């Protein structure tokens, strides 16, 4: 059952061979046994999960089930879930029980999924290792000395350790893809605007996008179909005809043109990652694809552009945490200004404060043109690079991350080194393109390697097709960490 796909679980639920209560109970048991080691969940509420499972079973008995009815999933703790603690990995929201559901949560609940709990994450999704969480770091199930990646590290570790069949994540600069890569699972960040941001606690609104994390491309297609859709409460939600992103899963890869950006295979890429990715690309050639070299010359510059734009948006978005309407308030203060300043000083962690300060600085008088405007112009050049590259290919492939999972504590002292671990993922968010990561082998230390697939706007079905065909020919996505 640990490796059963959503399709297999749905078939067993539908045939009456399995109840949601039993299935949910099984995963709750695993969480109870393994979460003390991994710290993948911030909140688990067995009674609430089992009540949802019973409701799902009743819905099925009444003949009103969808294929996802009764399937338990875990929520990244950035998604507001009515009646559940929703912390965003921060002390400042450590007492926030959400009064409403995010759009994504509404949609998946309407399909009948069951909540398994809220997963750990970097505070406000600002981090690449899950070490900035107020709730402590998550351990990588493949090697507990290693980070799971971030910011959706809890979701990635939960799926990798089979504590949940699937989970939700969000990706602002790589936060679905990088932890998926480091934990050996599959994850997709859709085209910007495909999944509603309503009720997804904002980090950088022009980059944030929610998406599913699961064991396989097929599972991702199932979940993405349920998550995506127009929502008028998100002003950047795209009003498009609904489409089935799983429609092309089985299509052969014959004639597929894969673009290999020369900058993704240059200096800075670890040899063990390069080797696994090369083998994966050779496998795609065997499946009928051809490869062509492309160039994304602004790859390196996407990092500084991102570290201007994302903090600028964050400094504005996080202004709402002031100790007045919700969340933590400092216990002692002399006046209103003192209350704001102490509440935020005590409520935010070091990385979040750093980014708020960067954002405040680049938007302040006299610096706007040199930083914010320059970064927005670079963003245009980065998007243009992708547009040119896609004239020669159907999808772009490369490593998701320059290295396999690094050790806990290894990069916390040097923010710049930490930021550079997202060098292959950031540009995709700046351009607003869809990107995914699937497991494609292991590095020297036995830690997973991720293959990144980037598509053109709204090419999710094609990317999932490529990933699915690859997963039919390989079994990296079915490997289980030892000791779980």
């Amino acid at each position, binding site marked *: 059952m640990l490796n059963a796909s959503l399709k297999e679980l749905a078939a067993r639920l539908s045939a009456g061979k399995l109840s949601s209560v039993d299935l949910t109970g099984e995963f709750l048991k695993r969480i109870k046994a393994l979460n003390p080691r991994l710290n993948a969940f911030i909140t688990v509420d067995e009674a609430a999960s089992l009540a949802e499972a019973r409701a799902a079973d009743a819905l099925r008995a009444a003949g009103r089930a969808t294929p996802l009815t009764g399937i338990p999933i875990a929520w990244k703790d950035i998604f507001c879930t009515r009646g559940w603690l929703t912390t965003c990995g921060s002390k400042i929201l450590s007492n926030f029980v959400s009064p409403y559901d995010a759009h994504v949560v509404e949609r998946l609940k309407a399909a009948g999924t069951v909540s398994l709990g809220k997963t750990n994450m970097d505070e406000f999704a600002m981090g690449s290792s899950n070490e900035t969480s107020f709730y402590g770091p998550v351990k990588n199930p493949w090697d507990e000395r290693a980070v799971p990646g971030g910011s959706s590290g809890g979701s990635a570790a939960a799926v990798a350790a089979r504590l949940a069949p699937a989970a939700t994540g969000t990706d602002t600069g790589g936060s679905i893809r990088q932890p998926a890569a480091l934990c050996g699972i599959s994850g997709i960040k859709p085209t910007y605007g495909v999944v509603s941001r309503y009720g997804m606690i904002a980090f950088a609104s022009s980059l944030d996008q929610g998406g599913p994390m699961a064991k396989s491309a097929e599972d991702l297609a199932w979940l993405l179909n349920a998550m995506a859709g127009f929502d008028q409460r998100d002003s950047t939600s795209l009003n498009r005809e609904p489409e089935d992103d799983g429609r092309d899963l089985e299509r052969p890869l014959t004639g597929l043109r894969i673009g290999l950006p020369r900058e993704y295979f240059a200096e800075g890429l670890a040899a063990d990652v390069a080797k696994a990715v090369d083998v994966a690309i050779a496998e795609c050639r065997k499946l009928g694809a051809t490869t062509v070299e492309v160039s994304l010359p602004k790859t390196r*510059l996407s990092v500084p552009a991102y570290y201007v734009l994302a903090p600028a948006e964050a400094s504005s978005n996080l202004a709402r945490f*002031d100790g007045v309407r919700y*969340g933590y308030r400092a216990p002692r203060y002399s006046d209103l200004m003192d209350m*704001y300043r102490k509440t935020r000083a005590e409520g935010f962690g070091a990385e979040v404060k750093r980014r708020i300060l960067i954002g405040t600085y680049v938007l302040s008088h006299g610096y706007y043109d040199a930083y914010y405007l320059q970064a927005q112009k670079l963003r245009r050049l980065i*998007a243009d690079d992708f547009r040119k590259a896609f004239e020669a290919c159907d999808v772009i492939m490369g490593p998701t991350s320059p290295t396999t999972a690094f050790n806990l504590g290894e990069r916390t002292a040097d923010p710049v080194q930490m930021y550079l671990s997202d060098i292959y993922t950031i540009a995709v968010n700046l351009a*607003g393109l869809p990107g995914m990561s699937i497991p494609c082998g292991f590095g020297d230390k036995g830690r997973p390697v991720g293959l990144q697939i980037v598509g053109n706007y709204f090419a999710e079905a094609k990317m999932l097709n490529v990933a699915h065909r690859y997963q039919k020919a390989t079994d990296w996505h079915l490997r289980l960490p030892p000791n779980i």
Partner: protein
Amino acid sequence: MALSLEDVHRIAYLARIAVQDAEARQVLGQLQGIFGLIEEMQAVDTAGIAPMAHAQDVTQRLREDRVAETDQHPLFQSVAPQVEAGLYLVPKVIE
């Protein structure tokens, strides 16, 4: 560019985050490193390039002028640190 300790205090004040001197000095070192990375952007000639604010060319939608929300005052205030008679309480701002 050289970020000073005074800059850190100024932006921390603008951002409404209290910082002590020792913390400010530590933050200064880290921000200098980060701005070293950010400065790499200045090497690119972007004359004539239109800034890109967003991935999609979307414009603000207008909605029909009708009541869409119900009053959820008590629910939303149930998560506030301090309320009284339907009002959010903060320290006195007017003498």
